[in-house]
């Protein structure tokens, strides 16, 4: 399942990160690595970008960027 398909408040484990070099690298640096637990905190008022909680910090990504991240939803 793509990260961009998660609902607000849903948690998931990261399975795979796609995308080009710079984007992928940036995502990894923010701690969104394979096996990390993430939670979709909220979507922006215009439904893009979205806010994640990962390793205790809040990170925002565009929906198109989140679509590059494959996750395994928890519950």
């Amino acid at each position: 399942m793509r990260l961009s398909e998660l609902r607000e408040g849903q948690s998931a484990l990261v399975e795979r990160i796609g995308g080009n070099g710079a984007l992928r690298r940036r995502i990894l640096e923010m701690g969104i690595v394979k096996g990390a637990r993430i939670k979709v905190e909220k979507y922006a008022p215009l439904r893009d970008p979205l806010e994640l909680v990962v390793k205790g910090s809040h990170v925002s990504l565009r929906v198109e960027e989140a679509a590059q991240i494959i996750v395994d939803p928890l519950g």
Partner: protein
Amino acid sequence: MSDKRLTIALAGNPNSGKTTIFNAITGTRQKVGNWPGVTVEKKEGLVDKFGHRLKIVDLPGTYSLTPFSIEEIVARDFILNERPDVVIDIIDSSNLERSLYLAVQLRELGCKVVFALNMADQARARGIKIDGEKLSQLLGVPVVFTVGNKGQGIDELLEKAVELAVSDKAPEHRRNVKYNSEIEKAIEALEKALAPKCGQKENVPLRWTAIKLIEDDRVAKERLRAVLGKDAEPILEEARRQRDYIAGRYNEDPEILTTDDRFGFISGIIKEIVTTSSRQRVDMSRNIDLVLTNRFLGLPIFFFFIWAMFQLTFSLGEYPMGWLETLVEGLAGLGARILPEGLLKDLVVDGVIAGVGAVIVFLPNILILFFCIALFEDTGYMARAAFLMDKIMHMIGLHGKSFIPMLMGFGCNVPAIMATRTLESRTDRILTILITPFMSCSAKLPVYIVLAGAFFGARAGSVIFGIYMAGIILSVISGRLFRSTLFRGADAPFVMELPPYRVPMLKSLVIHMWDRGKVFLRKMGGIIMIGSIIIWALSNFPRDPALQQEYEARRAALAAASGQEVSPRDMETELDRLRRQYEARRTAHSFIGRIGRAVAPVFEPIGVDWRGGVALLSGFVAKEIVVSTLGVLHAVGDEHSREALQRSLRRSGMSAAGALAMMVFVLLYLPCLATVIAIRRETGSTGWMVFSICYNTAIAWIAAFVVYQAGKVCGLG
């Protein structure tokens, strides 16, 4: 004081409180400049402590040391090339895991590092306890707890840093990240290949270079080629082979594997040093965001903040602006009184004081605006603003953070363009700078008021609104155009941290504000002065003695007649009329008047006569001058007599279509001198400055032409 000078570099994530610590160490003794060749801000400060002169260098805030952003390349090149005596890594204690990602890379670089565990009080409030001693043991790095905004631990931090800097203990290598066995084998192989070639070269740390080659790091490869020349090729070939092998073995890029391993190493450390208490305290930031980025309230609140910032900048700023204007007038008056009649006096009063004065009055606006922006940045709201606006801005091919500079453009383009510094990607920054001048700045408003008032009467308000809208629409079109041509495919990832909200510190706000003010005063001041003198010279030379003699003679004749046929009051008006006629003829005769007439054919198709042309040319200094030049050329005196100017404009044969076209031209054509200088400065390139001037002027002419011709067809002629 010992003459031994030590260089201490500060590294850390954005939002780690690095700037606060830098301010706490250096106070106001800071030097702000740019890193050579790039428009990344460089801050330095000198302090005398512990018998040493310490040069503190603030490296750009980064999450990593990859070659993907200028900031990271700058930070890493500084460490490799300048070899600071010690690097202090500022670590956000409540964000330990991610902060350590940068920390382990700094260790890999092989420099001496001290960790500052910053904002440990906040971490504790969130139920996170960190064993600093254990961390120090595990990584072999001195660790100091600091609370930057309270100044706690700063002295101890510096003491540890100096102690480490002067000790000749080499950093311990065994405490580095261990990668998986295949990668370690590859590193070893490359280190062996590198050792005979660059064993002595200080700026090529072996293990680091080997790791970077495996990660296919563009800059590291270039570096190796630069150091070794032809000898680099076999090593690079070997690196390629190793990469291919690893990639084939794990079905994944080696740089992904190394990142995974680093985070794996870090989570091992975290397990040993962090205890999280079960009673999770309330996350204040999250609660604030329940309101500030709320689906329904978020945008209205954001617009309110922006409105308030605008009001503060331009309404509150009006008062000190008025004082400065009075001061400038006073100076001009003083100059007029004490200097002897002649060229020097004209130059000083009409050239320098008037020209520089016209720009310096914006200083209060700039200071207030940057105070507000610093407030947004220091509290953490700027990231939320980008979060809220990104969807809309992304449609124009821009970043959410571009919204604030563009909006500020309605006030004044100079601070607006300086505000693009908040954008991290250079592409976004240049794109925003290029389209910001289409936001109609407040200096253009007097031009619209005069022209719309003269030709559109009751509909003037709607016409002016239409002009503003035209600017916005053209900026959107230009943005999309640039994105799909000049900056194709260069869309930087948005991935951005939403840092916890923090109470801002007045000291840091003031330092931030003053930095910008200084830049404005210093750079703008010099160039503006030269520009003003040139424009003054163009409009005052060549002098025509015959014209002046004729004026003097007629004045004398008039004065002689006083008391007989003419009453003193009529006398005043007559003298005034005479002076205005003289000024108009003199300006028409000057270089700028001649240039205006020479380029009149250019302005004719857009319905603007030579006087309008001259006014537009003089508007390059500052847009307000367009109105006063028109006033001079129409011999109606200064702007106090707006109605007289409007009457004269109507009589001069200008049509409504021509007035509309001129307004459109003023909206779009080349930005004023101060803005052009700001563009040059902030893009760091004369090329972009010239491009901006040409693009704007071309668009302006085409749009004005279309408007004038269409207006004539629609009966506005």
